[in-house]
């Protein structure tokens, strides 16, 4: 039974991520178009129906599936095939520890809305993110193309650099919430500060959030940190990929966005929490109460999580289509000379505050 539940949750999660990923391919096109006074992809049609280009992801998938699967003759076929799977899987896995709702009681069981509630959930996410580097490196290396390799090296260097900051930036948060479990962190964010402010991570750790968000974007390797791929350059670790293997890398990238959005939501924006919404309904600080049935509350909370994730996806898109790319030295300088000291400072200040006030 437990296995069944887990499997259902896994399927739900994968389904959610895949749908989000597919949608994001569409969103990316449409959003950038709208931002740039264009119309964007809208030509894929089924029987004349175009639905604002919503069929494009489908068309893309079809196209990618039918395309030639090219392996560089001098490259390693096995690793070349393996790499996108590593990249894609590690991207997916990270979401396993993110809670998308409060635990529910069903069939006399408490079911956590989370694939795996690990005590060290946050570490798990980082581990997954760290592993994704293998995908990049192997993809670049196995292509036997110096530009691919350069892209991969850039990716590795960049991911490692920003992993430091991303890790340190959440330490303050962990100190505040005192847990490594994401479900606990999410739960703890339901509290209020001074009785009226939701105790979301962003409230208690604004600097941590900024650092985390910046580093998260860098981890997803998107503009302005897209040097490993560099669409406008020849460099890119998946330069030699085509067909669905390219599709995997590509979808993986979008999945990473969703995962990062989920992580941001879970860590800094209260996870599934809706301000002032408790198990039985709203309780506003000024005393108004509005009782709500449990199912509705739950729906609201899950919806709030999905909405927040969607918002951050949108926001990352906005960032991606707003800023120009960093130069590589700027990228490194920001990582090591900007974010790293700031996150250390953040830990120090947090520590002092905790010491003083507790």
């Amino acid at each position, binding site marked *: 039974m437990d296995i069944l539940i887990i499997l259902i949750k896994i399927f739900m999660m994968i389904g959610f991520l895949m749908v989000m990923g597919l949608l994001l391919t569409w969103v990316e096109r449409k959003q950038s*178009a*709208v*931002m*740039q*006074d264009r119309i964007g992809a809208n030509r894929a049609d089924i029987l004349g129906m175009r639905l604002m280009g919503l069929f494009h992801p489908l068309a893309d998938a079809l196209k990618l599936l039918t395309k030639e699967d090219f392996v560089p003759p001098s490259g390693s076929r096995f690793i070349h095939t393996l790499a996108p799977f590593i990249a894609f899987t590690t991207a997916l896995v990270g979401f396993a520890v993110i809670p998308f709702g409060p635990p529910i009681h069903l069939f006399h069981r408490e079911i956590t809305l989370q694939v795996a509630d690990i005590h060290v959930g946050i570490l798990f996410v980082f581990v997954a993110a760290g592993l994704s580097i293998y995908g990049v490196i192997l993809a670049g290396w196995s292509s036997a193309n110096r530009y691919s390799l350069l892209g991969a090296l850039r990716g590795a260097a960049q991911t490692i650099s920003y992993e430091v900051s991303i890790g340190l930036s959440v330490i303050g948060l962990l100190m505040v919430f005192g847990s490594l479990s994401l479900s606990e962190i999410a739960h703890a964010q339901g509290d209020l500060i001074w009785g009226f402010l939701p105790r979301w991570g962003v409230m208690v750790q604004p600097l941590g959030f*900024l650092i985390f968000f910046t580093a998260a974007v860098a981890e997803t390797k998107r503009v302005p940190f897209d040097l490993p791929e560099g669409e406008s350059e020849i460099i890119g670790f998946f330069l030699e990929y085509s067909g669905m293997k390219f599709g995997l890398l590509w979808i993986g990238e979008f999945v990473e966005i969703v995962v990062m959005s989920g992580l941001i939501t879970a860590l800094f924006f209260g996870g599934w929490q809706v301000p002032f919404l408790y198990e039985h309904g709203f309780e506003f600080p000024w005393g108004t109460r509005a009782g709500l049935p449990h199912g509705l509350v739950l729906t609201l909370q899950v919806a709030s999580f999905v909405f927040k994730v969607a918002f951050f996806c949108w926001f990352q898109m906005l960032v991606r289509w707003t800023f120009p790319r960093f130069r590589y030295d700027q990228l490194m300088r920001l990582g090591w000379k900007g974010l790293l000291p700031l996150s250390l400072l953040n830990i120090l200040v947090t520590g002092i505050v905790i010491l003083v006030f507790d």
Partner: protein
Amino acid sequence: METVKKEKRSLGFLEQLYVGEVVKGLAITGRHFFRNLFIHTAHLFGLMKSRKGAVTVQYPEERRVIPAGYRARHRLVRREDGSPRCVACMLCPTICPAQCIHVRAGESPDPAIEKYPVEFNIVLDRCVMCGLCVEACPVDAIRMDTGIVEMSAYDREEFVNRRDLLLGMNPQTPPLPKTRHG
């Protein structure tokens, strides 16, 4: 020559933090996003049709008017008697930065004309549409006024436009509208 040195504006402290600037940038793109999203949505309901949310032209259904002087696909001009006006002087292959024009000259059957192109190939998939060949031509024999902008083929060989094909093309009809610049 005088070199003008532009003083680099030094950034203030707040600017150096970039946070504000980042937000400013996001605000601009965001403004466009929401305004256009609003307009597009309104369009769905048949409102605000007069305001356009996008500048996109829905090619191939919609086509922009090709302005005068637009460098479209090449053609070779004919004389009144139908023979090519080209005198095979090879100035176009000389100037061509993509080296996509190849001419083979031959003795013209008309004694008044020195030579004419026995073969004249424009390899379109190499062409960068710079129009230098048109500029270089001393007899106005090559023009890029066909108005044909679609150039695609299934085979490389199809991109090799040969003399008779080039001679068979016509200038864009109806005549080009006058633009602001005449």
